[in-house]
């Protein structure tokens, strides 16, 4: 049940003011961040009281925090007061009328990635009533899930329809005190996905935001929560290979995964946010907190990510291995070209007995790109027989880019086995010449070598993503040969 304006005001601890109603009634909120804005945001989304309360606690905590500066990335200071924290969905009249009105460069990329025509219209936001029969497709899909008792809906919907579930798990893996950007996200998150898979149920298809009805632009502060109950299985796909533009520069998402005993969650991301122009201007900052908790014995969480976009990528999808015999996996390809920067990696925290983690990180730096791997393998005192295997490889293309590795290994139990292998290589002229002598163009040769380099990660992706990811690498490396 939605919170009334009066309740909101009481929570904020302020007098009921006329201005507040105006805020709530406007289409979009003005730029700036304060308790009024958060109250208005929550009211617009018709959230129950607990949600607003949580947001306000997070906001008040955020005010006490300092922006972290330790990452290997550089960017001008973010002005939090100039961001709009809620904007109305784009009206039909603002959208392009057809693909003819869309940026030709964007269309070129769709072409190279082999995206079907109908999908291009959808991606470009063309104003059509029904681009294709999305309603019936999504409905069949939803029916199937409903039969099995699987909940898959937008986070906003979940807050209203399943408040108990949300309250139980929200912030249980990433508390609102966790870090600066997670706090901010907790205060102002816009929307995202909510998934709950009941005991013993295996979700029969890959879940992706593509199939959520009314998947409006989730905006900059995405919040996703996925819960797999005992013995459940779910594979979730986030993102798409098509380049996404956004007026909002800062994206600070939070994703929490909870896997109970014998459950398995597979979370795959392909991220190709606008990376900025060749001089690095105007790109998106992708500062994300992603964490999974293997709460029960033999639970398993796998993160697979292909990060080719954004001006700055700053994220460490992690796994907390609480249950005995639990397994955490992280497979990553991070590509930085032109002036992109990435500081990404993972944290594997071994708590239970006989836990296992695998980390395979492939960093590709081209142009003036800077690519850093930062990983933590932590084995607590009580974590008997923990095993970790880490492989981090960097590929440098050219002499103006950089690859850096910051591995942290903290082991407090003598039975642990931790292996770390790292390689740094330059794309070899000999390899390119060999492939060209077999008839491949210079561009195809580079693509082939780089895809070979990333193969171990690609094979962890669901098939449809894997094929797209390969093409995406090729497209992202344009201009890097030389």
């Amino acid at each position: 049940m939605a919170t009334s304006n009066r309740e909101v005001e009481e929570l904020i601890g302020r007098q009921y003011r006329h201005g507040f109603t105006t805020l709530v009634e406007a289409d979009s909120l003005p730029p700036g961040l304060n308790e009024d804005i958060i109250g208005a945001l929550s009211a617009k989304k018709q959230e129950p009281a607990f949600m607003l309360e949580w947001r306000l606690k997070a906001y008040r905590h955020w005010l006490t925090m300092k922006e972290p500066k330790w990452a290997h990335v550089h960017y001008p200071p973010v002005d939090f007061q100039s961001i709009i924290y809620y904007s109305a969905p784009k009206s039909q009249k603002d959208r392009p009328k057809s693909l003819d009105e869309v940026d030709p460069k964007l269309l070129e990329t769709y072409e190279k990635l082999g995206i079907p025509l109908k999908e291009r219209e959808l991606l470009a936001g063309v104003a059509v009533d029904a681009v294709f029969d999305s309603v019936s497709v999504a409905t069949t899909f939803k029916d199937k899930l409903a039969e099995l008792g699987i909940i898959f809906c937008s986070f906003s919907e979940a807050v209203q329809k399943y408040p108990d579930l949300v309250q139980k798990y929200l912030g249980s893996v990433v508390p609102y005190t966790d870090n600066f950007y997670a706090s901010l996200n907790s205060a102002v998150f816009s929307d995202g996905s909510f998934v709950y898979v009941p005991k013993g149920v295996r979700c029969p298809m890959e879940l992706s935001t593509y199939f959520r009805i009314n998947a409006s632009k989730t905006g900059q502060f995405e919040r996703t929560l996925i819960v797999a109950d005992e013995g459940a299985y779910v594979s979730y796909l986030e993102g798409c290979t098509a380049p996404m533009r956004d007026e909002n520069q800062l994206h600070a998402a939070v994703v929490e995964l909870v896997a109970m005993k014998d459950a398995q969650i597979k979370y795959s991301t392909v991220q190709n946010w606008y990376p900025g122009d060749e001089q690095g201007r105007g790109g998106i900052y992708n500062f994300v907190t992603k964490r999974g908790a293997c709460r029960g014995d033999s639970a398993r969480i796998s993160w697979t990510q292909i990060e080719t976009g954004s001006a700055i990528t700053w994220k460490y999808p992690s796994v907390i291995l609480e249950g005995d015999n639990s397994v955490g996996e992280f497979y990553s390809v991070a590509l930085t070209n032109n002036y992109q920067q990435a500081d990404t990696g993972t944290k594997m925290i071994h708590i239970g007995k006989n836990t296992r983690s695998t980390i395979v990180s492939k960093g590709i730096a081209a142009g003036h790109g800077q690519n850093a791997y930062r990983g933590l393998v932590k084995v607590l005192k009580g974590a008997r027989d923990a095993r970790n295997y880490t492989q981090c490889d960097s590929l440098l293309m050219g002499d103006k880019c950089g690859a850096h590795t910051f591995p942290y290994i903290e082991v407090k139990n003598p039975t642990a086995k931790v292996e770390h292998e790292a390689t740094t290589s330059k794309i070899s002229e000999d390899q390119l010449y060999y492939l060209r002598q077999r008839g491949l163009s210079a561009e195809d040769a580079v693509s082939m070598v780089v895809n070979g380099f990333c193969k171990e990660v690609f094979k962890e992706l669901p098939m449809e993503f894997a094929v797209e990811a390969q093409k995406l690498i090729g497209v992202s490396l344009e201009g890097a040969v030389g």
Partner: protein
Amino acid sequence: MLSIKNLHVSVEGKSILKGINLEVKAGEVHAIMGPNGSGKSTLVHVLAGREGYDVTAGAVTYLGKDLLALRAEERAREGIFLGFQYPVEIPGVSNIYLLKAALNAIRKHRGEEELDAIDFLARVREKLKLVEMKEDFMYRSVNEGFSGGERKRNEILQMAVLEPRLALLDETDSGLDIDALKIVANGVNALRTPERAVVLVTHYQRLLNYIVPDYVHVLVQGRIVKSGDKSLAHELERRGYGWVEAEARA
């Protein structure tokens, strides 16, 4: 098919080839022999289109075209194949994937339909027999973990599948034992047709017992100083390169 006229090539300012003249007609096998550092590899790499070589004088015509004006991949698509002396490893890229991409690039260039996976596999199986290699070999990454002999056989396998017009084989026999040598020779001989030509760069006469050349040329310090038929190879075997060098200086 191939006409090299007065070719001068420098590498980083140093003159390596000092006026090569060579005519290779379709159906012929030419062997190029010579001591280390004579420029044998340079010659094949210049023909294949490797970067880093400066052609300071001369011309090369291939099937009536100006070969030096074409990029390496264009030359490959026109039917030139280079069997590398040191085939490089390409981790993560399977042999079958590379070969299919290469064959289809060449076929596309020729206006032929690309082969689908099934037809391609059939073709490969045929050629695998020729080089006496098992099919599972195709699914391994290109040259990764291959012994020297396996790499050379892989080169011959690729050549057999791609069916080039002009095969340039750079010391294809180095590091091979007799059995491997015979297999390689079989592969090359199977390719000998009136439409094709082979240029074999080799150090040792031994290979030429199995791949009998029509012509033998001796390359010394960047020049072809002597040409003859297969008996020249035997003479070199007996007497070494010294006498040729001496003759050249005289």
